């Protein structure tokens, strides 16, 4: 069972997978999706600003600074355990 949490609650350094993006007020959610934050995308929390907000996220090989209120619209979960392929390669599960 996958438990989802808000992207704004994810600690620095963690990589999570997006499960859903809420619509938010004024088209927030849509803007996040335009920027590549889509269900199934991997997001890494890179660093926070000195005063705690905003936070820099690595999304699709680009870096986005996002405020907490907007990151809270994104529900994420930990990516599944890596699956060890029989020839020794490790993949992140599809």
């Amino acid at each position, binding site marked *: 069972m996958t438990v989802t949490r808000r992207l704004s609650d994810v600690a620095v350094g963690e990589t999570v997978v997006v499960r859903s993006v809420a619509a938010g007020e004024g088209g927030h959610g849509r803007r996040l999706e335009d920027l590549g934050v889509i269900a*199934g995308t991997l997001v890494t929390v890179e660093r926070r600003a000195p005063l705690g907000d905003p936070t820099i996220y690595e999304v699709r090989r680009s870096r986005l600074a996002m405020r907490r209120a907007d990151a809270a619209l994104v529900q994420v979960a930990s990516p599944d355990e890596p699956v060890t392929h029989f020839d020794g390669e490790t993949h992140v599960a*599809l």
Partner: protein
Amino acid sequence: MLSPDPTPSAEVAPAVHAERTDDPAVVRWVCASPSLDGVVDGRRQPPWVGASDLAAVAEVAVVAGTIVVRVPAADDWQQLLGPVHNALVDALRTRARWLFEPSDPQFSDLGALTAEAVQRIVDTAAGAITGAHGGNITVVGLHDGVVTLRLSGACHGCRFTDDTVQRVVEPALWRAHPYLSVHVER
């Protein structure tokens, strides 16, 4: 030069796109996921044979890891493009056996494959997850390339199990034995 899955992601739906070929009556579908690695070239009978709106499709074949579809005349694509695409995506979602022919070399070990071997793959792939939530996925049958899974414990009735089966178990099985298809006992 190119890795099979350059963009790390955790998407579940098939990732495909359609391309033109030199022949205007032929359109190719490239499939990033599920990967068509190990699928041998040759004609195929997709499961939609018999669907009335797709009856006009002349030929479906696998060529170099892509699915190639031919229609009688280029103009036919006007009607057929959408329906063929949707049907293909559905068919790929289950990575069904239609992609393989019994004569395909991958089937050579079909007879030798045991349910225990399959169970090992399932456990390696999903054991950590199911164990952590107090459930179990058991291989209860292996016949003619179809694996039957039974869900027990917390997995039974859990709405996220389908997710785990689709995203973890099936890909793990296919990497080892591409021709297997998975059936979950209800």
